[in-house]
C-alpha cells in the first residue's frame, strides 16, 4: 500500500520561483505562505522533494487512496516544542512519531499522514529543511507516506518559530480490540523501556535549567513493535503512549476510562540513572516526565510473559518490563509500592510539572 520507491518523473515546464531556494542563508518570508510562486517553489523544492511519494507528487489539494480491509483509524496531533532541536530528534521527527504512535496505540497499522506547517516569518530555511528532512526520514522508517499538507506563514512575533500538525490514517484488522477503556482487574501492565528520556533531554537544553547529560530523546515510531506485540498476543486490552504527563498521567487516564484501580511496583519501573539524576536535580518525579517512544501495554495476566518476551525480542522493547497490575477499585486510584517498601498514590498531575527547588 505504501508509495513505490521510485515515483514517476514529472515533466517540469513553467517551474515556479526562478532563483533556487537559498537553503543555506535564506529565511521564510510572508510570500512563502501567500499562494504565489514563492510558496509553490517552497512546496515543490522542499516538501515534495523530501517527502517524495506518488500521492503527494500529483500536487492535488487532497490525496486519494484506498485502504486495506479493516476499521479505519484516524488521529491528529499538533506539535509545539521548545527547543525545536533537541538531543535525539527535532520537532519534525517528533511530529511523525507522535501521530504514527497514536494510530499504533489503537492496534492499527498506520499508512498515510498529512502535515500542516505554521511558520513564523524569518524562520531560517536551513532549519526548515532540516526539520522536513527529519520528517521524511521518520516517515520512511515508520513505513508511512506524507501525502498532503499545508503551509502558512505568520508575521514575526506571532509564532514560536514553527508549529507542525500531523494527522494520519491507519487500519486495525478485524478481531483486534484495543482501547483505553478495556483494562480488566487482574491484567498486567507492561512498558517497553526506560521512562522520562524525552522530557529530560528537552529540559537539558532549556535556557533556564541547562545541564549537561548524554541522554537523548526516545522519540521513535512504535508501529513495528506494536505489530510484533499483536502477532504474539492478539488480545492486548490497552495500548497507550505515555507522552505529556508521563506514565502517571496516562495510567490515571486509563484507570478512569476503564473504571479500575492500578498498582505499580516502583522497583520494576525502568529509569536510566541519568534521568533519575536530572529529576533529583530539579525535584521532579520521572513518572510524570514525558516520553515520545514508549508505550504502556495492558494484557491478561496469563499472556503477560509471552507479551514481555515478544517486546524484549524487538529492538524497541529490549528494556521492556512488567511494572504493575490492574485492580478492582471503583475510585480508580493509581498507587505504587515504593522501592522503600511503602505504598503511595500516583495521582494526576496538578497543573504543569514545575521544578521544585527552593
Amino acid at each position, binding site marked *: 500500500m505504501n508509495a513505490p520507491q521510485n515515483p514517476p518523473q514529472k515533466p517540469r515546464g513553467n517551474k515556479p520561483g526562478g532563483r533556487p531556494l537559498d537553503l543555506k542563508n535564506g529565511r521564510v518570508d510572508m510570500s512563502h505562505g501567500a499562494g504565489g510562486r514563492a510558496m509553490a517553489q517552497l512546496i515543490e523544492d522542499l516538501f515534495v522533494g523530501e517527502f517524495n511519494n506518488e500521492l503527494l507528487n500529483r500536487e492535488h489539494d487532497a490525496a486519494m487512496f484506498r485502504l486495506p480491509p479493516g476499521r479505519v483509524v484516524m488521529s491528529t496531533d499538533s506539535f509545539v516544542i521548545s527547543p525545536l532541536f533537541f538531543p535525539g530528534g527535532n520537532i519534525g521527527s517528533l511530529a511523525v512519531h507522535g501521530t504514527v504512535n497514536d494510530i499504533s496505540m489503537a492496534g492499527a497499522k498506520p499508512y498515510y499522514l498529512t502535515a500542516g506547517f505554521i511558520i513564523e516569518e524569518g524562520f531560517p530555511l536551513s532549519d526548515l529543511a532540516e526539520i522536513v528532512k527529519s520528517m521524511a526520514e521518520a516517515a520512511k522508517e515508520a513505513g508511512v507516506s506524507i501525502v498532503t499538507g499545508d503551509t502558512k506563514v505568520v508575521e514575526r512575533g506571532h509564532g514560536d518559530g514553527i508549529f507542525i500538525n500531523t494527522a494520519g490514517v491507519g487500519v486495525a484488522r478485524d478481531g483486534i480490540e484495543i482501547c483505553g477503556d478495556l483494562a480488566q482487574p487482574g491484567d498486567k501492565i507492561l512498558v517497553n523501556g526506560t521512562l522520562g528520556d524525552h522530557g529530560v533531554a528537552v529540559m537539558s537544553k532549556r535556557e533556564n535549567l541547562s545541564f549537561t547529560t548524554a541522554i537523548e530523546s526516545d522519540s521513535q515510531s512504535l508501529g513495528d513493535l506494536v505489530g510484533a506485540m499483536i502477532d504474539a498476543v492478539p488480545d492486548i486490552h490497552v495500548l497507550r503512549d505515555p507522552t505529556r504527563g508521563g506514565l502517571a498521567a496516562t495510567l490515571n487516564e486509563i484507570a478512569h476510562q476503564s473504571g479500575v484501580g492500578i498498582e505499580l511496583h516502583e522497583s520494576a519501573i525502568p529509569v536510566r540513572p541519568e534521568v533519575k*539524576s536530572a529529576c533529583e536535580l530539579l525535584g521532579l518525579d520521572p513518572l510524570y516526565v514525558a516520553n515520545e517512544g514508549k508505550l504502556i501495554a495492558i494484557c491478561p495476566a496469563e499472556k503477560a510473559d509471552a507479551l514481555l518476551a515478544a517486546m524484549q525480542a524487538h529492538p524497541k522493547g529490549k528494556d521492556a518490563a512488567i511494572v504493575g497490575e490492574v485492580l478492582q477499585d471503583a475510585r480508580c486510584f493509581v498507587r505504587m509500592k515504593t522501592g522503600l517498601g511503602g505504598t503511595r498514590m500516583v495521582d494526576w498531575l496538578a497543573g504543569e510539572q514545575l521544578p521544585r527547588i527552593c
Partner: protein
Amino acid sequence: MCHAIPAKVVALRDDGMAEVELEGVIKEASLDLLDGVELGDYVILHVGYALAKLDPDEAQKTLKLFAEMGAAALAEGAVA
C-alpha cells in the same frame, strides 16, 4: 523545601564556579558560599550553590548506624 542534593566536584574553574556531577548529569555550581572545596569533594548543591561539604566518614557512620539499629531489632524480632 530547601531541595538540595549531594554532587561530586569534577572541575574547578577560575571564575569561582565548579562543575559538579550527579551520576550522568553535569551542572555548574557557585562556590561563593563555601571555602576550601577541592576536586573530588561531594558538596550539597542548592539552587546552583554549593552550600555545605558532605563528610564521607559521617555518611558511612550513619549508614552503619541504620544497619546496626535494624539488625538488632530484626534479631530480637526473630527471637520473639
